[in-house]
Protein backbone atom coordinates (compact mmCIF):
# COMPACT_ATOMS: atom_id res chain seq x y z
CA UNK A 1 0.00 0.00 0.00
CA UNK A 2 2.84 2.42 0.81
CA UNK A 3 4.79 3.12 -2.37
CA UNK A 4 6.64 5.84 -4.32
CA UNK A 5 5.33 8.73 -6.41
CA UNK A 6 6.70 7.14 -9.58
CA UNK A 7 5.07 3.80 -8.91
CA UNK A 8 1.80 5.53 -8.17
CA UNK A 9 1.97 7.41 -11.47
CA UNK A 10 2.32 4.09 -13.30
CA UNK A 11 -1.23 3.19 -12.28
CA UNK A 12 -2.48 5.83 -14.69
CA UNK A 13 -3.30 4.43 -18.11
CA UNK A 14 -3.95 6.21 -21.37
CA UNK A 15 -7.54 7.47 -21.65
CA UNK A 16 -8.39 7.16 -17.97
CA UNK A 17 -10.61 9.60 -16.09
CA UNK A 18 -8.82 11.28 -13.19
CA UNK A 19 -10.50 13.23 -10.36
CA UNK A 20 -8.50 16.12 -8.88
CA UNK A 21 -9.47 18.37 -5.97
CA UNK A 22 -9.93 22.15 -5.78
CA UNK A 23 -6.88 24.35 -4.96
CA UNK A 24 -7.46 24.63 -1.23
CA UNK A 25 -8.57 21.05 -0.54
CA UNK A 26 -5.24 19.25 -0.98
CA UNK A 27 -3.86 19.10 -4.52
CA UNK A 28 -1.11 16.52 -4.91
CA UNK A 29 1.24 18.83 -6.81
CA UNK A 30 4.01 16.35 -5.98
CA UNK A 31 2.36 13.89 -8.39
CA UNK A 32 2.31 16.32 -11.31
CA UNK A 33 5.93 15.69 -12.32
CA UNK A 34 5.76 11.88 -12.06
CA UNK A 35 2.47 11.86 -14.02
CA UNK A 36 4.04 13.93 -16.81
CA UNK A 37 7.15 11.75 -16.74
CA UNK A 38 5.02 8.60 -16.92
CA UNK A 39 3.33 10.12 -19.94
CA UNK A 40 -0.03 8.32 -20.17
CA UNK A 41 -2.11 10.75 -22.20
CA UNK A 42 -5.61 11.26 -23.59
CA UNK A 43 -6.76 11.84 -20.01
CA UNK A 44 -10.24 12.92 -18.96
CA UNK A 45 -9.77 15.26 -15.98
CA UNK A 46 -12.61 15.77 -13.52
CA UNK A 47 -12.11 18.87 -11.38
CA UNK A 48 -13.80 18.62 -7.98
CA UNK A 49 -15.31 21.07 -8.51
CA UNK A 50 -12.74 23.45 -10.08
CA UNK A 51 -9.17 23.17 -11.32
CA UNK A 52 -5.99 25.20 -11.12
CA UNK A 53 -2.26 24.80 -11.41
CA UNK A 54 -2.14 21.01 -11.73
CA UNK A 55 -4.83 20.92 -14.40
CA UNK A 56 -3.08 23.71 -16.32
CA UNK A 57 0.24 21.86 -16.18
CA UNK A 58 -1.21 18.52 -17.31
CA UNK A 59 -2.87 20.35 -20.22
CA UNK A 60 0.39 22.15 -21.00
CA UNK A 61 2.18 18.80 -21.07
CA UNK A 62 -0.26 17.57 -23.70
CA UNK A 63 -1.75 14.75 -21.61
CA UNK A 64 -5.35 15.94 -21.56
CA UNK A 65 -8.20 15.18 -23.95
CA UNK A 66 -11.13 16.47 -21.87
CA UNK A 67 -11.65 18.66 -18.82
CA UNK A 68 -14.92 18.27 -16.93
CA UNK A 69 -15.05 21.26 -14.60
CA UNK A 70 -16.91 24.21 -13.14
CA UNK A 71 -13.92 26.49 -13.67
CA UNK A 72 -10.16 26.48 -14.23
CA UNK A 73 -8.15 29.40 -12.91
CA UNK A 74 -5.05 30.31 -10.96
CA UNK A 75 -7.07 32.34 -8.44
CA UNK A 76 -5.33 35.56 -7.54
CA UNK A 77 -2.76 34.87 -10.27
CA UNK A 78 -5.47 35.14 -12.93
CA UNK A 79 -6.55 32.86 -15.75
CA UNK A 80 -4.99 29.46 -16.34
CA UNK A 81 -2.72 30.13 -19.36
CA UNK A 82 -2.33 26.63 -20.84
CA UNK A 83 -6.03 25.87 -20.30
CA UNK A 84 -7.09 29.14 -21.96
CA UNK A 85 -4.71 28.56 -24.85
CA UNK A 86 -5.94 25.00 -25.37
CA UNK A 87 -9.58 26.16 -25.35
CA UNK A 88 -8.81 28.81 -27.95
CA UNK A 89 -6.97 26.28 -30.14
CA UNK A 90 -9.67 23.68 -29.64
CA UNK A 91 -7.07 21.14 -28.61
CA UNK A 92 -9.03 20.07 -25.53
CA UNK A 93 -12.70 19.49 -25.00
CA UNK A 94 -14.24 21.31 -22.04
CA UNK A 95 -17.32 19.83 -20.40
CA UNK A 96 -18.47 22.98 -18.61
CA UNK A 97 -20.35 22.18 -15.41
CA UNK A 98 -21.35 23.98 -12.24
CA UNK A 99 -19.90 23.10 -8.83
CA UNK A 100 -22.91 21.32 -7.29
CA UNK A 101 -23.37 19.28 -10.50
CA UNK A 102 -19.88 17.82 -10.09
CA UNK A 103 -20.69 17.06 -6.45
CA UNK A 104 -24.02 15.53 -7.52
CA UNK A 105 -22.35 13.25 -10.07
CA UNK A 106 -19.84 12.02 -7.50
CA UNK A 107 -22.60 11.56 -4.92
CA UNK A 108 -24.58 9.44 -7.38
CA UNK A 109 -21.52 7.21 -7.78
CA UNK A 110 -21.06 7.12 -3.99
CA UNK A 111 -24.65 5.92 -3.60
CA UNK A 112 -24.45 3.40 -6.45
CA UNK A 113 -27.22 5.36 -8.18
CA UNK A 114 -27.22 6.08 -11.91
CA UNK A 115 -27.98 9.79 -11.39
CA UNK A 116 -28.87 12.52 -8.91
CA UNK A 117 -31.45 15.26 -9.47
CA UNK A 118 -30.46 18.89 -9.05
CA UNK A 119 -32.26 22.22 -8.95
CA UNK A 120 -31.12 25.20 -10.98
CA UNK A 121 -29.57 24.84 -14.45
CA UNK A 122 -32.80 25.16 -16.44
CA UNK A 123 -32.31 27.88 -19.05
CA UNK A 124 -28.51 27.97 -18.78
CA UNK A 125 -26.11 27.32 -21.63
CA UNK A 126 -24.28 25.03 -19.20
CA UNK A 127 -27.22 22.64 -19.46
CA UNK A 128 -27.66 23.31 -23.20
CA UNK A 129 -24.19 22.02 -24.03
CA UNK A 130 -24.22 19.10 -21.56
CA UNK A 131 -26.00 16.63 -23.80
CA UNK A 132 -25.06 13.90 -21.33
CA UNK A 133 -27.47 15.41 -18.78
CA UNK A 134 -31.22 14.85 -18.83
CA UNK A 135 -34.27 16.90 -17.89
CA UNK A 136 -37.36 15.14 -16.56
CA UNK A 137 -40.59 16.31 -15.08
CA UNK A 138 -40.49 15.95 -11.27
CA UNK A 139 -42.88 13.03 -10.66
CA UNK A 140 -43.75 14.34 -7.18
CA UNK A 141 -45.09 17.69 -8.39
CA UNK A 142 -48.72 18.30 -9.31
CA UNK A 143 -47.84 20.86 -11.98
CA UNK A 144 -45.11 20.55 -14.61
CA UNK A 145 -41.78 20.95 -12.82
CA UNK A 146 -38.69 20.31 -14.95
CA UNK A 147 -35.62 19.12 -13.05
CA UNK A 148 -32.14 18.18 -14.25
CA UNK A 149 -30.64 14.73 -13.66
CA UNK A 150 -26.85 14.51 -13.42
CA UNK A 151 -25.42 11.08 -14.29
CA UNK A 152 -23.01 9.38 -11.90
CA UNK A 153 -19.36 10.40 -12.25
CA UNK A 154 -17.12 7.35 -11.70
CA UNK A 155 -13.49 8.36 -12.09
CA UNK A 156 -10.96 5.63 -12.72
CA UNK A 157 -8.55 7.29 -10.31
CA UNK A 158 -8.71 10.02 -7.68
CA UNK A 159 -5.45 11.76 -6.72
CA UNK A 160 -5.01 14.10 -3.76
CA UNK A 161 -2.65 15.24 -1.01
CA UNK A 162 -3.40 15.12 2.72
CA UNK A 163 -1.53 15.88 5.95
CA UNK A 164 -1.29 12.36 7.43
CA UNK A 165 -1.81 8.70 6.65
CA UNK A 166 -1.22 5.75 8.94
CA UNK A 167 0.68 2.65 7.86
CA UNK A 168 -2.63 0.80 7.42
CA UNK A 169 -3.63 3.16 4.61
CA UNK A 170 -6.14 5.30 6.52
CA UNK A 171 -5.85 8.97 5.53
CA UNK A 172 -6.69 12.02 7.64
CA UNK A 173 -8.70 14.45 5.48
CA UNK A 174 -10.18 16.61 8.26
CA UNK A 175 -13.20 18.58 7.14
CA UNK A 176 -12.24 18.36 3.46
CA UNK A 177 -14.89 15.75 2.87
CA UNK A 178 -14.88 16.26 -0.91
CA UNK A 179 -11.73 14.12 -0.76
CA UNK A 180 -13.78 11.28 0.71
CA UNK A 181 -16.46 11.86 -1.91
CA UNK A 182 -13.83 11.56 -4.65
CA UNK A 183 -12.50 8.34 -3.17
CA UNK A 184 -15.94 6.79 -2.68
CA UNK A 185 -16.78 7.48 -6.32
CA UNK A 186 -13.47 6.37 -7.83
CA UNK A 187 -12.25 2.87 -8.63
CA UNK A 188 -8.76 3.64 -7.30
CA UNK A 189 -7.44 6.41 -5.08
CA UNK A 190 -3.81 7.56 -4.92
CA UNK A 191 -2.85 9.71 -1.96
CA UNK A 192 0.32 11.62 -1.15
CA UNK A 193 0.82 12.78 2.44
CA UNK A 194 3.13 14.97 4.47
CA UNK A 195 3.92 12.05 6.77
CA UNK A 196 2.97 8.47 7.60
CA UNK A 197 2.35 7.59 11.24
CA UNK A 198 2.55 4.24 13.02
CA UNK A 199 -0.66 4.31 15.05
CA UNK A 200 -4.02 3.74 13.36
CA UNK A 201 -5.98 6.95 12.82
CA UNK A 202 -9.13 4.95 13.57
CA UNK A 203 -8.04 4.17 17.14
CA UNK A 204 -9.19 7.51 18.52
CA UNK A 205 -12.72 8.75 17.87
CA UNK A 206 -11.29 12.26 17.52
CA UNK A 207 -9.01 11.46 14.60
CA UNK A 208 -11.37 8.82 13.18
CA UNK A 209 -13.96 11.56 12.60
CA UNK A 210 -11.73 13.14 9.95
CA UNK A 211 -10.33 9.92 8.48
CA UNK A 212 -10.91 8.32 5.09
CA UNK A 213 -10.71 4.56 5.78
CA UNK A 214 -8.12 2.42 3.97
CA UNK A 215 -10.84 0.49 2.19
CA UNK A 216 -11.14 3.42 -0.24
CA UNK A 217 -7.40 3.99 -0.63
CA UNK A 218 -5.31 2.13 -3.21
CA UNK A 219 -1.82 3.53 -2.57
CA UNK A 220 -0.14 6.14 -0.43
CA UNK A 221 3.28 7.79 -0.74
CA UNK A 222 5.11 10.26 1.44
CA UNK A 223 5.66 13.68 -0.18
CA UNK A 224 6.62 16.44 2.28
CA UNK A 225 5.30 19.81 1.12
CA UNK A 226 3.49 17.81 -1.55
CA UNK A 227 0.83 20.46 -2.21
CA UNK A 228 3.39 23.20 -2.93
CA UNK A 229 3.04 25.82 -4.30
CA UNK A 230 -0.52 25.36 -3.07
CA UNK A 231 -0.97 25.42 0.69
CA UNK A 232 -2.25 22.64 2.90
CA UNK A 233 -4.68 23.40 5.72
CA UNK A 234 -3.07 23.36 9.13
CA UNK A 235 0.38 22.83 7.53
CA UNK A 236 1.59 25.65 5.28
CA UNK A 237 0.16 28.58 3.31
CA UNK A 238 -0.04 28.98 -0.45
CA UNK A 239 3.15 30.27 -2.11
CA UNK A 240 1.41 32.96 -4.15
CA UNK A 241 4.67 34.33 -5.52
CA UNK A 242 5.46 30.95 -7.06
CA UNK A 243 2.01 30.68 -8.65
CA UNK A 244 2.47 34.19 -10.07
CA UNK A 245 5.86 33.12 -11.40
CA UNK A 246 4.20 30.17 -13.13
CA UNK A 247 1.38 32.34 -14.46
CA UNK A 248 3.89 34.68 -16.09
CA UNK A 249 6.10 31.92 -17.48
CA UNK A 250 3.27 29.80 -18.87
CA UNK A 251 1.83 32.59 -21.02
CA UNK A 252 3.66 30.92 -23.91
CA UNK A 253 4.25 27.25 -24.67
CA UNK A 254 7.99 27.87 -24.55
CA UNK A 255 7.78 29.65 -21.22
CA UNK A 256 5.75 26.74 -19.88
CA UNK A 257 8.36 24.22 -21.07
CA UNK A 258 11.10 26.23 -19.44
CA UNK A 259 9.25 26.50 -16.15
CA UNK A 260 8.47 22.79 -16.03
CA UNK A 261 12.07 21.82 -16.74
CA UNK A 262 13.59 23.98 -14.06
CA UNK A 263 10.90 25.05 -11.67
CA UNK A 264 8.93 21.94 -10.90
CA UNK A 265 9.26 19.80 -7.80
CA UNK A 266 11.51 22.20 -5.97
CA UNK A 267 9.49 23.36 -2.98
CA UNK A 268 11.25 26.11 -1.09
CA UNK A 269 11.07 24.29 2.24
Amino acid at each position, binding site marked *: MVTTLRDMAKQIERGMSIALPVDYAGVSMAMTGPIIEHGAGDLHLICVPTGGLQVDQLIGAGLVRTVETSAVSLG*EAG*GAPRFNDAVKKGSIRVMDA*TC*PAIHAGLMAAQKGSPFLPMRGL*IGTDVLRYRTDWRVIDNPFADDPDPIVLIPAIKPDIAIFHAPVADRFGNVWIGRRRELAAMAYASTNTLVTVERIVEESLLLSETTAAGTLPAIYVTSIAEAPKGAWPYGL*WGEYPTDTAEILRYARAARTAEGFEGYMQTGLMEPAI
Partner: protein
Amino acid sequence: MSAVLPREVLICAIARLLDGVRHVAVGASSPIPAAGAMLLRALKKKAGAPLPRISILGSVEHNFFTNGSAELFDCAGQGRIDAFFLGGGQIDGQGNVNLVGAGDYPGSTVRWPGSFGSAYLYFVVPRVILFREEHTPRVFVDKVDFISAPGVSADGVFRQGGPYALLTGKGLFAFDKEVPGFRLESVHPGHDLDDIRQSTGFEFAHEENPQQTALPDAETLRLLRGDVLDELTETYPAFAEQMRKDHELALKACEVVS
Protein backbone atom coordinates in the same frame (compact mmCIF):
# COMPACT_ATOMS: atom_id res chain seq x y z
CA MET B 1 -12.23 62.61 9.07
CA SER B 2 -11.36 62.47 5.37
CA ALA B 3 -13.80 62.44 2.46
CA VAL B 4 -15.65 59.21 1.70
CA LEU B 5 -13.66 57.00 -0.67
CA PRO B 6 -15.34 55.40 -3.70
CA ARG B 7 -14.84 51.92 -2.20
CA GLU B 8 -16.38 53.07 1.05
CA VAL B 9 -19.46 54.12 -0.89
CA LEU B 10 -19.64 50.60 -2.31
CA ILE B 11 -19.12 48.95 1.06
CA CYS B 12 -21.86 51.03 2.65
CA ALA B 13 -24.20 50.34 -0.27
CA ILE B 14 -23.61 46.60 0.22
CA ALA B 15 -24.30 46.86 3.95
CA ARG B 16 -27.66 48.44 3.11
CA LEU B 17 -28.47 45.81 0.47
CA LEU B 18 -27.79 43.07 3.03
CA ASP B 19 -30.00 44.56 5.73
CA GLY B 20 -32.25 41.87 7.17
CA VAL B 21 -30.32 38.78 6.06
CA ARG B 22 -29.57 36.03 8.61
CA HIS B 23 -26.70 34.45 6.70
CA VAL B 24 -24.59 35.78 3.85
CA ALA B 25 -21.89 33.84 2.00
CA VAL B 26 -18.97 35.66 0.43
CA GLY B 27 -16.30 34.42 -1.96
CA ALA B 28 -12.71 34.16 -0.76
CA SER B 29 -11.51 36.82 -3.19
CA SER B 30 -14.32 39.35 -2.58
CA PRO B 31 -13.03 41.87 -0.02
CA ILE B 32 -15.61 44.59 -0.79
CA PRO B 33 -18.66 42.32 -0.31
CA ALA B 34 -17.02 40.89 2.81
CA ALA B 35 -16.42 44.40 4.14
CA GLY B 36 -20.07 45.29 3.45
CA ALA B 37 -21.24 42.23 5.37
CA MET B 38 -18.88 42.97 8.25
CA LEU B 39 -20.05 46.58 8.37
CA LEU B 40 -23.66 45.47 8.57
CA ARG B 41 -22.77 43.14 11.42
CA ALA B 42 -20.95 45.93 13.25
CA LEU B 43 -23.95 48.25 12.83
CA LYS B 44 -26.34 45.56 14.09
CA LYS B 45 -24.10 44.86 17.05
CA LYS B 46 -24.09 48.53 17.95
CA ALA B 47 -27.89 48.61 17.71
CA GLY B 48 -28.22 45.46 19.83
CA ALA B 49 -30.02 43.70 16.94
CA PRO B 50 -29.58 40.05 15.91
CA LEU B 51 -26.30 39.64 14.06
CA PRO B 52 -26.08 38.29 10.52
CA ARG B 53 -23.84 35.27 10.07
CA ILE B 54 -21.04 35.68 7.52
CA SER B 55 -19.43 32.69 5.81
CA ILE B 56 -16.28 33.53 3.90
CA LEU B 57 -15.46 30.68 1.54
CA GLY B 58 -11.89 29.47 1.68
CA SER B 59 -11.17 31.37 4.91
CA VAL B 60 -10.15 29.31 7.91
CA GLU B 61 -11.18 32.04 10.37
CA HIS B 62 -14.70 32.52 8.93
CA ASN B 63 -15.30 28.97 7.73
CA PHE B 64 -18.39 27.60 9.45
CA PHE B 65 -18.52 24.58 7.17
CA THR B 66 -17.22 21.12 8.00
CA ASN B 67 -18.57 19.01 5.15
CA GLY B 68 -16.27 19.88 2.27
CA SER B 69 -16.90 22.17 -0.66
CA ALA B 70 -20.35 20.73 -1.33
CA GLU B 71 -21.71 22.16 1.93
CA LEU B 72 -22.15 25.72 0.62
CA PHE B 73 -24.47 24.44 -2.10
CA ASP B 74 -26.32 22.10 0.24
CA CYS B 75 -26.71 24.93 2.72
CA ALA B 76 -28.11 27.21 0.01
CA GLY B 77 -30.41 24.45 -1.20
CA GLN B 78 -31.75 24.12 2.36
CA GLY B 79 -32.64 27.82 2.29
CA ARG B 80 -30.05 28.65 4.94
CA ILE B 81 -28.21 31.27 2.85
CA ASP B 82 -30.06 34.52 2.27
CA ALA B 83 -27.56 36.47 0.21
CA PHE B 84 -24.65 35.84 -2.12
CA PHE B 85 -22.53 37.88 -4.56
CA LEU B 86 -21.96 37.16 -8.20
CA GLY B 87 -19.64 38.89 -10.65
CA GLY B 88 -19.48 38.14 -14.35
CA GLY B 89 -17.37 38.60 -17.45
CA GLN B 90 -20.60 39.79 -19.04
CA ILE B 91 -23.92 40.78 -17.48
CA ASP B 92 -26.87 41.71 -19.65
CA GLY B 93 -30.06 43.71 -19.22
CA GLN B 94 -32.11 40.59 -18.42
CA GLY B 95 -29.83 39.83 -15.51
CA ASN B 96 -28.12 36.98 -17.36
CA VAL B 97 -24.58 36.30 -16.20
CA ASN B 98 -21.70 34.93 -18.27
CA LEU B 99 -18.66 33.53 -16.46
CA VAL B 100 -17.49 31.26 -19.30
CA GLY B 101 -16.22 33.33 -22.21
CA ALA B 102 -16.77 35.91 -24.95
CA GLY B 103 -17.44 34.84 -28.51
CA ASP B 104 -18.87 31.62 -29.88
CA TYR B 105 -18.86 28.74 -27.40
CA PRO B 106 -16.95 26.45 -27.10
CA GLY B 107 -14.09 28.12 -29.01
CA SER B 108 -14.45 31.36 -27.02
CA THR B 109 -12.17 34.20 -28.19
CA VAL B 110 -11.76 35.11 -24.54
CA ARG B 111 -12.11 32.29 -22.05
CA TRP B 112 -12.90 33.01 -18.42
CA PRO B 113 -12.55 30.42 -15.66
CA GLY B 114 -16.08 28.99 -15.80
CA SER B 115 -19.51 29.11 -14.24
CA PHE B 116 -18.47 27.98 -10.73
CA GLY B 117 -21.66 27.54 -8.66
CA SER B 118 -23.64 30.30 -10.38
CA ALA B 119 -25.86 27.97 -12.41
CA TYR B 120 -27.25 26.73 -9.10
CA LEU B 121 -26.89 29.52 -6.53
CA TYR B 122 -28.61 32.11 -8.76
CA PHE B 123 -31.72 29.90 -8.60
CA VAL B 124 -31.82 29.23 -4.88
CA VAL B 125 -30.33 32.19 -2.97
CA PRO B 126 -33.06 34.83 -2.48
CA ARG B 127 -30.84 37.89 -2.61
CA VAL B 128 -28.09 37.61 -5.20
CA ILE B 129 -26.17 40.86 -5.48
CA LEU B 130 -24.44 41.34 -8.82
CA PHE B 131 -21.23 43.17 -8.12
CA ARG B 132 -18.70 44.35 -10.65
CA GLU B 133 -16.59 47.48 -10.19
CA GLU B 134 -15.65 47.80 -13.86
CA HIS B 135 -18.61 49.54 -15.44
CA THR B 136 -18.04 49.41 -19.21
CA PRO B 137 -20.04 48.31 -22.29
CA ARG B 138 -17.65 45.36 -22.51
CA VAL B 139 -19.05 44.00 -19.23
CA PHE B 140 -22.62 45.29 -19.34
CA VAL B 141 -23.77 43.97 -22.69
CA ASP B 142 -27.11 43.78 -24.43
CA LYS B 143 -26.97 39.98 -24.55
CA VAL B 144 -24.41 37.68 -22.97
CA ASP B 145 -22.56 35.26 -25.26
CA PHE B 146 -23.08 32.36 -22.83
CA ILE B 147 -25.67 32.07 -20.08
CA SER B 148 -23.93 30.71 -17.00
CA ALA B 149 -26.96 31.73 -14.97
CA PRO B 150 -30.17 33.34 -16.24
CA GLY B 151 -31.72 36.45 -14.66
CA VAL B 152 -35.23 35.10 -14.84
CA SER B 153 -36.86 31.75 -15.49
CA ALA B 154 -39.99 30.65 -17.29
CA ASP B 155 -43.14 30.04 -15.28
CA GLY B 156 -43.10 26.65 -13.60
CA VAL B 157 -39.32 26.51 -13.30
CA PHE B 158 -38.18 26.10 -9.69
CA ARG B 159 -36.76 29.48 -8.74
CA GLN B 160 -36.54 30.76 -5.19
CA GLY B 161 -33.65 33.11 -5.82
CA GLY B 162 -32.19 35.49 -8.34
CA PRO B 163 -30.80 38.96 -8.93
CA TYR B 164 -31.70 41.52 -6.30
CA ALA B 165 -29.44 44.43 -7.23
CA LEU B 166 -26.51 45.32 -9.43
CA LEU B 167 -23.75 47.38 -7.89
CA THR B 168 -20.98 48.80 -10.07
CA GLY B 169 -18.25 51.42 -9.67
CA LYS B 170 -20.67 53.99 -11.02
CA GLY B 171 -24.10 53.23 -9.69
CA LEU B 172 -26.63 51.00 -8.03
CA PHE B 173 -29.44 49.25 -9.91
CA ALA B 174 -32.41 47.30 -8.64
CA PHE B 175 -33.66 44.29 -10.61
CA ASP B 176 -37.32 43.94 -11.49
CA LYS B 177 -38.04 40.38 -12.51
CA GLU B 178 -41.48 41.31 -13.83
CA VAL B 179 -40.05 43.52 -16.62
CA PRO B 180 -37.44 41.85 -16.52
CA GLY B 181 -34.75 44.48 -16.32
CA PHE B 182 -32.68 46.84 -14.24
CA ARG B 183 -33.71 50.19 -12.86
CA LEU B 184 -31.06 52.72 -11.86
CA GLU B 185 -31.54 53.47 -8.16
CA SER B 186 -28.70 55.89 -7.54
CA VAL B 187 -25.50 57.27 -9.00
CA HIS B 188 -22.25 57.25 -7.02
CA PRO B 189 -20.56 60.58 -6.31
CA GLY B 190 -18.48 61.74 -9.29
CA HIS B 191 -20.69 60.05 -11.91
CA ASP B 192 -23.91 61.03 -13.69
CA LEU B 193 -26.69 59.48 -15.74
CA ASP B 194 -25.05 60.24 -19.09
CA ASP B 195 -21.81 58.63 -17.99
CA ILE B 196 -23.70 55.52 -16.85
CA ARG B 197 -25.75 55.40 -20.07
CA GLN B 198 -22.63 55.46 -22.19
CA SER B 199 -20.96 52.81 -20.08
CA THR B 200 -23.90 50.41 -20.17
CA GLY B 201 -24.59 48.20 -23.16
CA PHE B 202 -28.21 47.51 -22.16
CA GLU B 203 -31.32 49.63 -21.68
CA PHE B 204 -32.42 50.33 -18.11
CA ALA B 205 -35.15 52.28 -16.39
CA HIS B 206 -34.30 55.43 -14.46
CA GLU B 207 -35.65 58.67 -13.00
CA GLU B 208 -35.04 61.79 -14.98
CA ASN B 209 -32.71 63.00 -12.25
CA PRO B 210 -31.53 59.95 -10.38
CA GLN B 211 -30.47 60.50 -6.80
CA GLN B 212 -26.94 60.20 -5.55
CA THR B 213 -25.96 57.01 -3.73
CA ALA B 214 -26.34 57.68 -0.02
CA LEU B 215 -23.10 58.37 1.78
CA PRO B 216 -22.37 56.87 5.16
CA ASP B 217 -22.83 59.05 8.22
CA ALA B 218 -19.90 59.80 10.48
CA GLU B 219 -20.67 56.98 12.92
CA THR B 220 -20.87 54.38 10.13
CA LEU B 221 -17.62 55.66 8.66
CA ARG B 222 -15.97 55.44 12.07
CA LEU B 223 -17.05 51.81 12.41
CA LEU B 224 -15.89 50.99 8.90
CA ARG B 225 -12.49 52.58 9.36
CA GLY B 226 -12.05 51.12 12.83
CA ASP B 227 -13.43 47.71 13.88
CA VAL B 228 -14.39 46.57 10.38
CA LEU B 229 -11.04 47.40 8.85
CA ASP B 230 -9.29 45.59 11.71
CA GLU B 231 -11.48 42.55 11.20
CA LEU B 232 -10.96 42.70 7.44
CA THR B 233 -7.20 42.63 7.93
CA GLU B 234 -7.33 39.01 9.12
CA THR B 235 -8.79 37.68 5.88
CA TYR B 236 -7.85 40.32 3.29
CA PRO B 237 -4.57 41.85 4.52
CA ALA B 238 -3.55 43.31 1.15
CA PHE B 239 -6.93 44.93 0.62
CA ALA B 240 -7.06 46.35 4.14
CA GLU B 241 -3.59 47.82 3.75
CA GLN B 242 -4.60 49.48 0.47
CA MET B 243 -7.68 50.97 2.15
CA ARG B 244 -5.48 52.43 4.92
CA LYS B 245 -3.11 53.95 2.35
CA ASP B 246 -6.06 55.43 0.43
CA HIS B 247 -7.30 57.07 3.63
CA GLU B 248 -3.96 58.66 4.27
CA LEU B 249 -3.82 59.98 0.72
CA ALA B 250 -7.38 61.31 0.97
CA LEU B 251 -6.60 62.90 4.31
CA LYS B 252 -3.60 64.66 2.84
CA ALA B 253 -5.70 65.80 -0.12
CA CYS B 254 -8.25 67.24 2.33
CA GLU B 255 -5.53 69.08 4.17
CA VAL B 256 -4.34 70.61 0.90
CA VAL B 257 -7.89 71.68 0.02
CA SER B 258 -8.70 73.14 3.44
